[in-house]
């Protein structure tokens, strides 16, 4: 009984660590696409892309927010389909 509880506890700890690793990785990307480009927006604007967007403006108005949507789906699918399964937390 005591032994199986310990196995259970270490499984939970491993699950939580893996969850945290995924969350932190995605938060680093979130941080990068949010905060790294605006300080240079004025210089980036000199570059034109697609139909004529100034790059700095485009990064904030389209690129970052599209990455946000992707990040959430990557998180949800990785958790639901990979990490939960690996640790046996699937729905019945």
């Amino acid at each position, binding site marked *: 009984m005591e032994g199986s509880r310990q196995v259970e506890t270490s499984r939970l700890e491993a699950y939580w660590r893996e969850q945290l690793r995924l969350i932190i990785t995605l938060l680093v990307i979130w941080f990068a696409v949010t905060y790294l480009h605006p300080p240079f*927006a*004025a210089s980036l604007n000199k570059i*034109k892309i697609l139909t004529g*967007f*100034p790059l*700095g403006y485009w990064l904030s108005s389209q690129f970052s*927010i599209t990455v946000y*949507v992707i990040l*959430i789906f990557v998180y949800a699918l990785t958790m*639901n389909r990979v990490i939960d399964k690996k640790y046996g937390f699937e729905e019945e």
Partner: protein
Amino acid sequence: MSQEAGYTPLTRAQLSEFRRRLAKYYGAFFVFLIAFTVVLYLFERAGLPQRFIGYAFIFLTLLLYAFIGILNFTRRLEEYYVAGRRVPAIFNGMATGADWMSAASFISMAGTLWLLGYDALAYIMGWTGGYVLLALLFAPYIRKFGQYTIPDFVATRYGERARLARFVAAICAIIVSLAYVTAQVTGVGIIMSRFFGLDYRVGVFVGLAGVLVCSFLGGMKSITWTQVAQYIVLIVAYLIPVTFLSAKLTGVPFPQLMYGKALSEIGQLEQAMNLPAYVQPFKQALSNSAAISAFKQIGITPPEPITVKDWVGTPWQFLALTLCLMAGTVGLPHILIRYYTVPSPKEARISVGWSLFFIWLLYVTAPAYAAFSRWEVLQNVVGQPINALPEWTANWIRTGLLKITDANNDGILQFSELSINGDIVVLATPEIAGLPFTIAALVAAGGLAAALSTADGLLLVISTAVAHDIYAKIINPNAPYGRRFLLSRLMILISAVIAALLAIPQFALIVQLVAWAFSMAASTFFPVLLLGIFWKRANANGAIAGMIGGLITCLVYMFWNYVDPRFNVLGLSHLSAGIFGMAANFLITIVVSLATAPSPKYIQDMVDQLRIPVGEMRLPAPGAAPGTAPGVAPAGQD
């Protein structure tokens, strides 16, 4: 405890059957909306007066919302508070989209972009990026917790001082939501008066009736299913005009891609006219002009006008505002409670993705509105003889939203002689694109849907904070079921009337309050929820001190800077005061928690349970003997 007696969750098969049925209903609703628009357009061509087309749109949509609201009448608390926890991820995504996007997103966002250019993109990034935090840090854990309100969570997680923690959280929820709902009611009144010629006050009360039919009878259950319909109305209404405008101006009906052309045309026109560049970042100086006009309106002696230009050209305000809006988004109770309504934590994760996708559709389009109408104005309005301006300008000059003065009497309109109210950008686009009035009426119906759906969600938060948190959990824990229910309904009615009364004088301060709501939410809920889930050592003393200290720090910076912008750190305005409140809250919560005893074992066990996406939560009564508190629910128990 989280499940009401006799209320069983749906099985997976029932849920997917439910999802299919919903898809059919709302698919039919979408087709009906388009068909109705086409029919009205045909009537318009046949000569039906515009006034009737406008009324037809408003009354038909209100009738539909009322129909859905009444259909979802309920006597069960589990349905009244959390829609029975059976809302599929994708539909909860649409409901969250409508809940989130207010009159301000629908009408004013594009206008703000028109006026501020790059600097307004802080709103676009802040109000979307917050959902990443919501998905990764909050939504699945909040759903696993599975009670009814956000103060429920605060009171349980910080259970050593459950009543005080709940009280502070409930008061914070009420302050934030009341400011916000008043702005929605104001928005309804403005749309009604501008488009349908109703008196502003009559508009407010018609709108209020619209809110009440959706929320009074069925609570969260009615709200959810009307919000899905309202999302469909608002997104169709938002996308159609700008798509036609893009086709007219560039030949390609894909505004999100084609406004790049508008931006480069704007750049060339600006150079030719020696205007500051629209896409140039960080142009905003600090000023107290908002405080001056707000103070004058309520009869307080206004401060001397002060403008601080020291920080123009630095990115700090932009970065801080973005962070503040993100953290505020995650701390808004009416958004958080939407994730109680999905069937499981796994659905909650996916549901945030859908939520942001549906919000993204509007936010990625808003800058296109701004760019196309700026192009139109620079190309066809500025530099033209004043007596030969395009036809669409006449209507808006009449409403006072567009002001033109020939300051130098040369008969030609210069850019500086033009003054634009931002709201015009969305409202006038149908006319600029040469679309029939039917489309303009559809846009008004969309704005109304945006305002009503947000107001619904907020009213529910206020009413549950009073009826559930303060009355049933603090004042009278033995209150009979029927009385709790009655009080919930009564509170919706009362808070709706209070919001309407606050909206009648149209105080500029109210608009300001909404902008501040994000700072306040970031300073109160965000840190204590985050630490509550991710740091077991956080305790009740820390959280309560943190919420109070965070709110005070935020308010001090806010008001001081609002009145006297010379008081600032790195040029941050009162709009980003939440940065300081949030930092103070984190610091105080951590220091006080470490200085006092850790939370008892049963609370730490509860945090362990939160982190597992399956199984029901088992919440022990406080004071349960050590060892009897349930450990971790076994895998797969559902």
